[in-house]
């Protein structure tokens, strides 16, 4: 069985097209599946939100989860669509451990004609000990299908 050429490839997408904010934060591809994508964010002193503890700010985690969940929608659909985040909620379950790489996993669990529903978690080594949980929606102005 041949793989259709239009299939969205997150690794290629992040290596080629995505400079900007993701590159600025040091985000990279980690893994993906049929409806999920994972990104990695190595520890970087430039991301610190609390100088005393060295813990990274909450913002970079939100950025990573926004991108990982966005790609999960394209993976579920099998191709790229223009869309924008409608809303995103992040629960910060615990501080990220200074020095550790944060892994963010986004999953698309439902797509309708114009709205995609996503959820995800971030951890720093043990997926059973998450540091953040997210839920949200994306909207495609031209429609997803």
């Amino acid at each position, binding site marked *: 069985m041949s793989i259709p050429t239009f299939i969205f490839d997150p690794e290629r997408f992040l290596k080629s097209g995505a*400079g*900007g*904010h*993701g*590159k*600025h*934060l040091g985000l990279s591809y980690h893994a993906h599946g049929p409806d999920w994508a994972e990104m990695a964010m190595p520890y970087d*002193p*430039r*991301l*610190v*939100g*609390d*100088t005393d503890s060295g813990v*990274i*700010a*909450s*913002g*970079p985690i*939100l*950025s*990573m989860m*926004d*991108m990982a969940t966005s790609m999960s929608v394209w993976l579920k659909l099998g191709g790229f669509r223009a869309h*924008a*985040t*409608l*809303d*995103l*909620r*992040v*629960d*910060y379950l615990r*501080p990220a451990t200074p020095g550790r790489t944060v892994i963010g996993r986004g999953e698309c669990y439902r797509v309708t004609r114009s709205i995609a529903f996503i959820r995800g978690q971030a951890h720093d080594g043990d997926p059973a000990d998450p540091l953040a949980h997210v839920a949200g929606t994306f909207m495609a102005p031209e429609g997803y299908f």
Partner: protein
Amino acid sequence: MLPPYAETLGLYVDPDCADGCRLVMPYADGVLGRPGFLHGGAISGLMEMAAIVALQRALAGDGGGRIKPINVTVDFMRGGRDKLTYSTGIVTRLGNRVANVEATAWQDDAAKPIAAARMNYLIVRG
């Protein structure tokens, strides 16, 4: 006073603002998402920093304390374009253990926000 992450976003306190708690984020490659538009994560980061600045100011006049983020909910309303983005945090309620804070981000007109956020923070009193 602003942490390294704020510097990474290029944020500064608006010198034109009398109360000193409005933040500005210049348009730069490091805060861009899709071509020509601000990244939602950078806009959210700006609003979270504006919320923390507002909360620190409120706390300073109320005995002080440490701030821990519990959650944030962000609504994205308009695309962020090639211009300055502003954000101010508003402390809706400052309790003993929890603070409720809101923030919006805008470019041309504060009445037309590009995004809005509400946050809960845990307060650890000294």
